[in-house]
C-alpha cells in the first residue's frame, strides 16, 4: 500500500453570509510512496495551499478520501477523529506554512524547540537541538533569544522552518517554504529536504520556483 492514496478529493467553501459555495478543487486523484516527492503546480488561486491544508486537516475536505498508512494503522485523513489527526501531527505529518505565528514574549530558540518538547523530549535537550537547526538555517546567533514578532519575514520563516522540520516526520507538506529565504538558506533547506527524502519521508510541495526543487521531484500534480 502507498503511504498516501487520494481519491476524488474535493473542497468547497460554504460562505454563509454570501450564501455561496466556492470551489477550491474537485475530484483529485494521486498517490505517494515513502521517499517520493510530489510537486503541486498551477497558477495562483487554484487551491494548491488548500489541498495541503485539507491533507493536514486545517481545512475539511467536502468529498473524497485520503487513505494514509500511519504507524498506528490505516486511516482516512478526510474522516479521522480530531484527536487522531492531532496524534498524527505530533508524530508523523508536518506542515510548513509561509507564515509564523510568533507568540508574544517567547524567544526564537524556545519557539523552535517547542515541538520537540511537546513530542516528549526534555526541554534542555530540545533547546540544544533547536540551536543546531537555527545554526544550519543561518539565523543570526544574537537574535536567538529575541522575540520573533519583530523579525524580518525571512528570519521568521527560518524559525518557522525549524519548528516544522525538527520533529521526525513520515509525510511533509510544504507550502512555498522557500518564498522569503535568501540563497544560502534556500540551499540549506533543499539539502535538508533531500536528506529527508533519502530517509523515506514523503513530501508534497508547492514551490514558487521550479528551479528550487530540480532533481527532487518524482511526480507532478497540476491544478487548473
Amino acid at each position: 500500500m502507498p503511504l498516501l492514496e487520494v481519491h476524488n478529493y474535493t473542497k468547497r467553501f460554504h460562505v454563509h453570509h454570501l450564501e455561496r459555495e466556492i470551489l477550491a478543487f474537485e475530484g483529485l486523484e494521486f498517490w505517494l510512496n515513502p521517499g517520493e516527492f510530489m510537486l503541486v503546480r498551477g497558477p495562483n488561486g487554484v487551491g494548491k495551499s488548500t489541498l495541503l491544508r485539507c491533507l493536514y486537516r486545517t481545512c475539511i475536505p467536502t468529498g473524497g478520501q485520503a487513505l494514509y498508512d500511519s504507524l498506528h494503522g490505516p486511516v482516512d485523513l478526510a474522516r479521522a477523529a480530531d484527536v487522531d489527526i492531532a496524534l498524527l501531527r505530533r508524530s508523523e505529518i508536518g506542515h510548513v506554512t509561509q507564515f509564523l505565528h510568533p507568540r508574544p514574549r517567547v524567544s526564537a530558540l524556545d519557539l523552535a524547540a517547542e515541538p520537540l518538547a511537546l513530542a516528549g523530549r526534555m526541554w534542555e535537550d530540545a533547546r540544544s537541538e533547536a540551536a543546531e537547526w537555527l545554526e544550519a538555517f543561518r539565523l543570526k546567533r544574537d537574535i536567538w533569544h529575541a522575540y520573533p514578532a519583530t523579525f524580518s519575514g525571512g528570519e521568521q520563516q527560518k524559525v518557522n522552518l525549524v519548528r516544522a522540520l525538527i520533529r521526525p516526520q513520515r509525510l511533509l507538506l510544504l507550502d512555498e517554504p522557500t518564498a522569503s529565504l535568501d540563497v544560502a538558506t534556500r540551499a540549506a533547506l533543499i539539502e535538508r529536504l533531500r536528506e529527508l527524502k533519502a530517509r523515506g519521508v514523503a513530501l508534497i510541495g508547492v514551490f514558487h520556483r521550479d528551479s528550487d526543487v530540480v532533481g527532487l521531484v518524482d511526480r507532478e500534480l497540476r491544478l487548473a
Partner: protein
Amino acid sequence: MTSLAFDLPRLLTTAPLLRARRLTKHYGAIPAVAGVDLDVYPGEVLGIVGESGSGKSTILRLLNLEEAPDTGDYTLTIDGYRGRNLFTLDRYDRRALRVRHIGIVYQNPLHGLRMHITSSGNVAERLIMAGERRFATLRNAARDALDASEFPLARMDDIPRRLSGGMQQRVQLAKAIALQPMVLLLDEPTTGLDVSVQALVLDTLKRIQRELHVATIIVSHDLGVIRTLADRVLVMRHGRVVEHGLTDQVLDDPQDAYTQQLVAAKL
C-alpha cells in the same frame, strides 16, 4: 451542529481523562447549557469560545462540581473514581475530589482567592484541605507552586489585595496546581490583564501545561488566546455546541454560520 461527523478515534489508544455527556442546566426558564458533550484527553487543552451568556462559564462550574446540573454524566479516569457519575458524589467525596484533582483559575481573583490572607497562605490552604499540617512542608510547597507560576517570591507574604492583576492570577494558578491536579479549568484567565502581562501569563500556562500534562479546559472569548493554548475547540451559542474541531481548523475553515461570523469579527 454543522460540523461534519468524523470517525470515532481509532489511532489514539488512550481514553479521555474527562468525559461529560448531555450536560444540561437551566436558570429559571433559561437554558444556560443544553445537552453538551465533551471529552478531554490527558495532556490536551480544550478551548471553549462563544459570546457572553453562551454557557461557557456554566460548563466550568458544573465540571468543578460547584453547581449541580439538571441532568448529565461526568466521569474522570482517575483511580477511585472510574466509572462513577461524579454528579452523584456526596459532598465529602466531592470536596475531596476537587481538592486533590481539580484546579481552577477564575477570571475574577475575588472568586478564587481570599484577599485578606497572604499569597503563600492562599496556596497553602489547599494543601491543608488535603490534610497536610506540617508548617515547613506547607511553606515549601507553597513556595514551589508560586515559583512554578512565576510569581515573584519576594512578595509571597503580601496579601492579594496589594498585588497587580497579573500577580493575582499567578497566585490563583499556584493554588490550582499546588497538588498537581489531573484537571485544570481556566475561566478567562487573562481577560482584564494588559496585553504584555497577558502574554507572560499565557507563556506560563503553556509551560505548565507542557510540564504537568494535565487535561485542561480554557474558556475565553479571545480567539488569540485560544489559538495559542488550545488543541481543540468547542464553539458555543445559546447553551449548545454549534461547532467543534481542531483549533486551526475551526479558526481557518469554520463551518457553522455563527463561527464564520465570530472568526470574521476578530481584529
